[in-house]
């Protein structure tokens, strides 16, 4: 495969790849560059910084709001992921392995939930949360995140469960294993990559949310990174916060991009299988 193609063709594909990389990379390279430039070079228009400084990164971590927001984001997105995976696996298993009335409605219904505009529910949630004491708490974000994460989890898990060799489960049960044993020993290890990819996708969805975080939190107690970034200001109003925002953006982007790169194959499978095969 690799060696095929005329030199001209190879050149064409190399060029195409380059175009795609520039398209993807330029805005990112720019924000990285802004985060490394000293304040005096901020407006110089150079992509490659003439002087490199880590001051902005130090400033970002010295600002107490940023580490707090990172902690909130990590905790809330992880909790939402665990919850969505737990509920999603049960439902996906049922959809794939069991015949029961209403099965199709479950998939259709969760598709409908996936298309729900968050702004349509954020008002009543605020009204409810403010009275229940859930405003500006982790719980107050984890619960609405289910509306973003659970449908995605059900669809991608169902798609990956469908491809599993369920005959092995049947064989194990014939050999005397209980349903749970068969699931745990045989199916779970095989399902692990799909579950991991789902976890990454679901985590990204929760990590990415802006509307709920903006509306249902207000302080370091629960405010997440995207909401904090939108309100990020420099140490004082006399300071242009551009560099700090750029540095903070880089910090929050790196882990997600790393996750995406590591899990790229199962993610692509998960993303597209849910949408097309379903």
């Amino acid at each position: 495969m690799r060696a095929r193609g005329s030199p001209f063709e190879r050149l064409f594909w190399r060029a195409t790849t380059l175009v795609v990389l520039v398209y993807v990379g330029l805005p990112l390279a720019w924000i990285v560059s802004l985060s490394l430039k000293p304040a005096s070079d901020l407006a110089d228009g150079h992509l490659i910084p003439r002087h490199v400084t880590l001051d902005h990164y130090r400033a970002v971590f010295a600002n107490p709001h940023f580490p707090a927001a990172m902690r909130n984001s990590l905790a809330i997105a992880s909790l939402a992921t665990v919850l969505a995976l737990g509920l999603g696996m049960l439902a996906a298993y049922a959809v794939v392995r069991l015949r029961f009335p209403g099965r199709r409605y479950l998939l259709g219904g969760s598709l409908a939930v996936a298309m729900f505009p968050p702004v349509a529910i954020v008002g009543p949630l605020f009204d409810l949360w403010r009275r229940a004491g859930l405003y500006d708490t982790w719980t107050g974000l984890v619960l609405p995140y289910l509306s973003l994460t659970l449908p995605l989890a059900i669809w991608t898990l169902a798609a990956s469960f469908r491809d599993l060799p369920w005959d092995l489960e049947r064989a194990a049960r014939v050999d005397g294993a209980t349903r749970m044993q068969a699931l745990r020993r045989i199916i779970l290890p095989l399902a692990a990559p799909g579950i991991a990819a789902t976890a990454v996708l679901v985590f990204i969805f929760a990590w990415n949310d802006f509307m709920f975080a903006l509306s249902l939190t207000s302080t370091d107690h629960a405010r997440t990174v995207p909401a904090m970034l939108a309100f990020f200001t420099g140490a004082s109003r006399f300071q242009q916060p551009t560099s700090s925002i750029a540095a903070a953006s880089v910090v929050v982007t790196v882990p997600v991009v790393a996750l995406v790169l590591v899990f790229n194959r199962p993610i692509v499978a998960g993303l597209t299988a849910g949408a097309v095969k379903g």
Partner: protein
Amino acid sequence: MRMPREHRLGWLLSAPAVVAMAAVTAYPILAAVRLSLYRYDLRFPDARTFVGLRNYATILTSAIWWKSVAATLIITVPSVSVELVLGMGLALVMHRALIGRRTVRTAVLIPYGIVTVVAALAWRFAFDPTTGFVQGLGVLDRPWLSARWSAFTVIILTEIWKTTPFMALLLLAGLALVPTDVMRAARVDGATVWQRFFRVTLPLMKPAILVALLFRTVDALRIFDTVFVQTRGALGTEPVSLVGYDTLLVSLNLGLGSAVAVLIFVLVTGAALVIVRGMGDALPEDRLR
């Protein structure tokens, strides 16, 4: 005996997910419908009264609402169309490429994984006259986010950058479903590259295209993050979500804001139904070929 047990187990396993989804979507939207019939403004806590459909009348006679509907469409239609074309190109590249295919496939996932707020900030800085690079490109030198149409352009570009990869991946999956023997047969029959693409590939991909359209249209109609970060709705770029957010959570006018929310829900659901109906027509026709 066996069947009902399987039914019971199926329901039992799906119940937690169903209940959770209903609790965080169906219940709040019903609450929004109820609130929308009241004058309920947290700034006037004692003045809560039933007003029937008055909030809806207020919104539907408001120029602000219709302008925001227009802004939403001005953002949605170009971004989804361009994404479809670009995404198709990207999908074809990924489908056909022999060299660099993995690199491309991995790279396109990056915009998808990036927090929308960060993407919006990156583009805002790029177009900013002091911190950007776009003004270094000669004719493009202008304060982009200071005028209406250029601000729309930046917003739409950001959307396209962020979501074309998703579109491309969905279309790529659709391309993979085009049987190679059909393509080979077409080639043998002497069809040109263009004929093959428009007469064979595209019709076979119609379901995948419609799915991609559905997802992205619904998503674009809900646009909020990018506009909030880049213009905060100034210069007539305010989409419906921002009007809803401001009425609900900045004014704390929960009655009126809930009516906005319900109308947005209707708008998005309506758009989804139109596309789904198109999909329903497409599927059988497809199978016939």
